[in-house]
């Protein structure tokens, strides 16, 4: 049954799709976008917006493309005069009570109502002389405002909370044109995944307080990235305005997070914009640290390693990329190495309606990548090894005071730092590195899926990607070594990935073959 296919013709394009596919999805295959509001591929379809009505030959009336399954030989006209007239009418109906306050609406520029009205709507309204429906803005919960005037009652938010989050706190209240999305008076829209309703809302009705009036959509640059918050590895987009990160949104990946990210991941971007960054390499000069250029810093790094005979401890933060971890492990190769990644723990918060999707307890994006690359000691054993180590390398770790104190007693200490840590009083070397928002790299999620992220903003000062720093340090430890020049080369050189390339990973990632880890 599952592999049976059906061939249909949609706007003169023939496509073959699995049996049971809805016309709206088959049309996507044919390169035809059927305008829609209530339909969403990750939600059940109620067919209420009536926007996706299309003409199906031999059907007595227009059919909703979102709930009409394709049949063999079916001929569909998305842009027939009847279908266009029907959509024009729906758009006019939707606009009669819509305030058209686009100039002050956060959604403007990425609004599906704007888009489709511009594409297919009437130029003017015939609903003149009547007052529009009005209702005041409501505070729904932690980060969410509801602007009922703009609402087109597509019910995506209701279905998300009910069918996907399993927390049905919102529902359509009242009837007819008085209807609105209401929340139980004793409830708040504060489910750990509730922020997704803002993305799902096709208009500017559900707004993020955090993003409120922060930027116009057309001023944003969008960068494909991976959420660094936990081992789930949700795909996300980093929105920047003038190089400042102003918003994180989910990026669809049906294998990982479908169309969603959790509120914790969504809100966790302020550290990307910090102004107190380590911007120049620093080397110890007596009792003080002196700013130097990269040549001097890298030479010092190589010298320190070459001169220190004894065990090495590598302490990595959870956001270190595979390229970085692989580079650092290569940098210290030859010594007895104890390498660990710090994994902060938190509560697991599942999105009940989607299998295998949760904010994971392990709040480290690249834990699986670290394991693949030999950064696999326990954090406790690595910290215990600090006192006997000849050299300790810290890669962008958020340290507590006890850890900072212990590290201050290390023989030699090199800090790959995004933020300099004054508690590390004895640090020999501070190497300013980029955050994940400023570099490209690969994280491996808990299901061993290797996924790329791209740089969203420029690095501050002299900061360089940690993989570059490690590679340069390694090249300087012995003559005749040539360090990778690009992140792509750095990744390609990692034996643990068995020759996988950036190109192969694409922007939705690939699962690392089991054999590759065995080879490690």
């Amino acid at each position, binding site marked *: 049954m599952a592999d049976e296919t059906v061939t249909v013709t949609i706007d003169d394009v023939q496509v073959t799709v699995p049996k049971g596919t809805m016309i709206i999805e088959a049309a996507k295959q044919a390169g035809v976008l059927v305008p829609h509001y209530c339909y969403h591929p990750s939600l059940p379809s109620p067919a209420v917006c009536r926007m996706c009505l299309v003409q199906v030959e031999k059907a007595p009336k227009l059919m909703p493309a979102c709930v009409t399954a394709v049949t063999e030989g079916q001929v569909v006209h998305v842009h027939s005069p009847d279908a266009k007239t029907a959509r024009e009418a729906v758009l006019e109906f939707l606009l009669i009570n819509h305030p058209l306050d686009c100039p002050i609406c956060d959604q403007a520029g990425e609004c599906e109502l704007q888009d489709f009205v511009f594409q297919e709507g009437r130029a003017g309204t015939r609903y003149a002389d009547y007052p529009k429906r009005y209702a005041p803005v409501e505070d729904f919960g932690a980060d969410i405002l509801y602007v009922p005037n703009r609402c087109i009652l597509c019910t995506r938010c209701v279905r998300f909370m009910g069918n996907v989050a399993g927390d049905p706190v919102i529902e359509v209240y009242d009837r007819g044109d*008085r209807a609105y999305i209401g929340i139980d008076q004793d409830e708040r829209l504060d489910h750990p995944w509730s922020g997704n309703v803002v993305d799902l809302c096709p208009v500017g009705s559900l707004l993020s307080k955090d993003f409120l009036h922060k930027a116009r959509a057309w001023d944003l640059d969008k960068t494909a990235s991976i959420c660094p918050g936990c081992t789930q590895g949700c795909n996300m987009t980093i929105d920047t305005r003038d190089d400042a990160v102003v918003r994180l949104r989910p990026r669809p990946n049906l294998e990982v997070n479908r169309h969603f990210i959790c509120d914790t991941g969504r809100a966790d971007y302020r550290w990307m914009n910090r102004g107190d960054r380590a911007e120049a390499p620093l080397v110890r000069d007596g009792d003080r640290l002196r700013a130097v250029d990269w040549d001097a810093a890298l030479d010092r790094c190589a010298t320190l390693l070459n001169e220190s005979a004894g065990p090495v401890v590598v302490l990595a933060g959870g956001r270190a990329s595979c390229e970085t971890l692989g580079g650092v492990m290569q940098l210290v190769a030859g010594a007895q190495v104890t390498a660990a990644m710090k994994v902060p723990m938190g509560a697991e918060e599942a999105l009940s309606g989607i299998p295998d999707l949760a904010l994971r307890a392990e709040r480290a994006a690249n834990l699986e990548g670290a394991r693949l690359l030999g950064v696999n000691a326990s954090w406790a054993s690595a910290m215990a090894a600090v006192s006997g180590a000849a050299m300790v390398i810290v890669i962008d770790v958020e340290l507590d005071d006890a850890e900072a104190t212990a590290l201050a007693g290390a023989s030699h200490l090199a800090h790959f730092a995004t933020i300099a840590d004054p508690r590390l009083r004895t640090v020999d070397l501070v190497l300013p590195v980029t955050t994940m928002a400023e570099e490209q790299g690969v994280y491996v999620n808990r299901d061993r899926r290797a996924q790329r992220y791209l740089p969203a903003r420029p690095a501050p000062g002299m900061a360089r990607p940690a993989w570059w720093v490690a590679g340069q340090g390694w090249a300087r430890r012995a003559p005749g070594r040539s360090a990778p020049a690009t992140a792509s080369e750095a990744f390609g050189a990692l034996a643990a990935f068995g020759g996988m390339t950036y190109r192969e990973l694409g922007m939705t990632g690939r699962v690392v073959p089991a054999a590759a880890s065995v080879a490690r």
Partner: protein
Amino acid sequence: MGYPHPIHPKETPVLSTHFGEADARTFDGWVKRGGYAALRKALEMTPEQIVDEVKASGLRGRGGAGFPTGMKWSFMPKDTSRPHYLCCNADESEPGTFKDREIMRWTPHALIEGCIIGGLAIRAETTYIYIRGEFTEPYHVMVKAVAEAYAAGALGANVFGSGKRHDVVIHRGAGAYICGEETALMNSLEGRRGNPRIKPPFPAVAGLFGAPTTINNVETLAAVPHILVRGAAWYAGLTLSSPKSTGTKLISVCGHVQRPGVYEITLGLPMKELIYDLCGGMLPGRTLKAVIPGGSSVPIMTPAEVEECATDYEGIVAKGSMLGSGGMIVMDDTTDLVYQIMRLAKFYAHESCAQCTNCREGTAWTTRILERLLAGEGKASDLDLLLELSEQMTGKTICVLSDSCAAPVVSGIHKFRADFEAYLTGAAVPAMAEV
């Protein structure tokens, strides 16, 4: 003396025979009148035999759509690995319709008996009777009758000792018109918002609680015992016109007639006789202006159309309207049709479930245009706009509520355009001024 009016010679009392007899409400009184004989007969029959009998009778759904009942029952799967349900739609909320109320008020056991037989036919052990919230008296009568039926062994684990089970659950609605739409009714029964569901899946595949379900109108189910007792051939022979419209139909007539009320006619009776003979015709000095023959959702008929119309499914369609629920609204020449149509539109705007855009916004917009017209502030383009909106409210939505709003508007403008134009030209006194 007889229930509100004595039985007219042109009536065919079948369901209404015992209307007005208090004793008929009791179990014993009903048995004395031949009640539950059909059930005893049905208990000896196979589900297929019951379905075939009802098919042969030609009985069609009395709720409005007129779908053949036997065929509807035959859509139910034979497999009973999942429970089957029978729903009885007693949410009689169509403006102008008040026939089911009388069945429940006077002959509750006829309905209960019909439910059990229907349940046997579709292999359901439970019937949910969804009674309109405003129906206080019918609700109490039904509750009492169900209790009696349980006590007498007609309901319960062992219906009349047959070993077969049947339960009846009475559910009282909360006053939403839309809950009379069959799938909205099921949502409402399940405790959800009463929104119509998209079809497919049809109720026979996935209805109440996701299980195979058949939903029938009160009048339909109440007719079934008569068919089993007196035979399909008798019922099929009850027609004055088309063999496709058989049996009797309760017509609730309201409006400007001398004797409004519920009349039981053999299908095919000329509408003229219904209005002028049974209902006594217009009030003195008045003339007929318009008739809405099947509940407020159907197109309006002109006197000329009424003149030649046979009161049955096909006859009324031939005259541009529908038999619908049989709720007939008669209007005489004192009627302001524009106002009446606005009232209907306002009703639909109020009752729209708000799911579908066209209905949610279209019904309200239509109402506003009509209100403005009535206030004497209409524009020449308003009539065309109304027709255009109606076009976009017809056949575009999940259920037919918005179609129902459009039907009187479209037929009103087409058939009574002068009434509308009077408001445009100022010939008519703005009616909304005093509202």
